[in-house]
């Protein structure tokens, strides 16, 4: 990943900064600049998601791409935030430790790195609420 590509999305990676349409109340993550329902009536504002949500579905990655090989086996899940948006994220848990519906909260972790000398990509993973 280029340095610029990582840097551009730091607000989303670190702090789950999305958007919300003040007209219809819909939340967007990743952020949208335009509400597909309200169209020109929509008023889009930034919204920082607290990050609490639940596991919609999950899988265990045992054969990963090169930069995630050292983490295998790891849990990848679709998370639904309490405000509605869904996205894919890693869950810091042992395989079998979570199930559909498990409540999760965000944690700040090292996601990947551009080799031994490149930029470290920090971001958000999730952990089961204990």
């Amino acid at each position: 990943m280029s340095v610029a590509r990582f840097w551009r999305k730091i607000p989303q990676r670190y702090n789950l900064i999305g958007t919300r349409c003040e007209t219809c109340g819909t939340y967007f993550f990743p952020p949208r600049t335009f509400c597909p329902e309200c169209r020109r009536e929509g008023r889009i504002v930034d919204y920082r998601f607290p990050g609490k949500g639940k596991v919609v579905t999950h899988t265990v990655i045992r054969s990963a791409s090169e930069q995630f090989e050292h983490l295998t086996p790891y849990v990848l899940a679709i998370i639904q935030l309490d405000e509605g948006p869904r996205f894919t994220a890693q869950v810091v848990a042992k395989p079998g430790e979570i199930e559909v519906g498990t409540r999760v909260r965000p944690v700040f972790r090292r996601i990947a790195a551009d080799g031994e000398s490149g930029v470290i990509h920090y971001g958000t993973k999730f952990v089961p609420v204990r």
Partner: protein
Amino acid sequence: MVGILTYGVYIPRYRIRVKEIARVWGANADEITGGLGVFEKSVPDMDEDTATIAVEAARYALARRKVDPEEIGAVYVGSESHPYAVKPTACTVGEAIGATPHMTAADYEFACKAGTAGIQTCMGLVQSGIVPLGLAIGSDVAQGAPGDALEYTAAAGGAAFLIGNRDPIALIHRTCSFTTDTPDFWRRAGQDYPRHGGRFTGDPGYFRHVQAAAKLLLSQVGAKPDDYTYAVFHQPNAKFPRRVAQLLGFTDAQIRPGLVVPHLGNTYSGSSMIGLAATLDVASAGDRIFVTSFGSGAGSDSFDIEVTDAIESPDLFQRAAAPSVEELLKDPVYLDYAQYAKHKGKIVMQI
């Protein structure tokens, strides 16, 4: 008056027992545990480092108190294991707590006392009116060479203290330092692991500096050890802080709440700060806390702290909104040495 507005601690969930490390190196586990008073130490997860620990500690601090992050005008992260040699951990922390861009930031390095040096800097900036709030963090994923004495204790963890002057939960009445050029422990540029002077780290290093800074502070504030409810000393092992407390006239009861090293290990820059946090976890309004850190190289920072009514005022501060040190030490996941080596990146991989 300047003081601590809130604090937070983060400790990774993984542990390795001292006896497991001793097993690998053919050492006598009972002798080591008996000598150090340390039974296990924390180990970072595969995706945790000084920056992630610092961010989690800072976020826990902000969970305990409603603060506008944009008022945090300074962030200092003390560590001897910053993820980058050049690029500040403090910028990552500032971004992750929403304090950027109107803030100053820097990383500090002074062996195990870089975090308390950050507290002193924040005190100066707040007292001079340059910033309304300053955040000082001590965080480390401490390194110890395989088979070296340090490996039995070098742990991972961090603590964050928000310094300001509006309704602090604890006033910092005074701070002072004692610093000399003493090569008791060091890591040369480009080296993976620190080296140390063995027993030389004791008398000319730890004991000289901790005692000198502590006595200086006691004389400056005109206090005696029994004027304090609690005392916290840097804890590279359990023996040193107990011994220095005794030499200075503090009791076992005074240091007990803050003596976290037996089941945590030495979190280097986090060490005395986590000890202070564990003490604040149980402190009540009016309690006085004496703190002396130590960083090899060498120096000590002493603090005269008094807990205020704000610590018990739910409108200002909610202690239970973040986990206590005792809670963070509960329910660990134990690793064997091979798993520990993988977590710490000690295994040479094919690239």
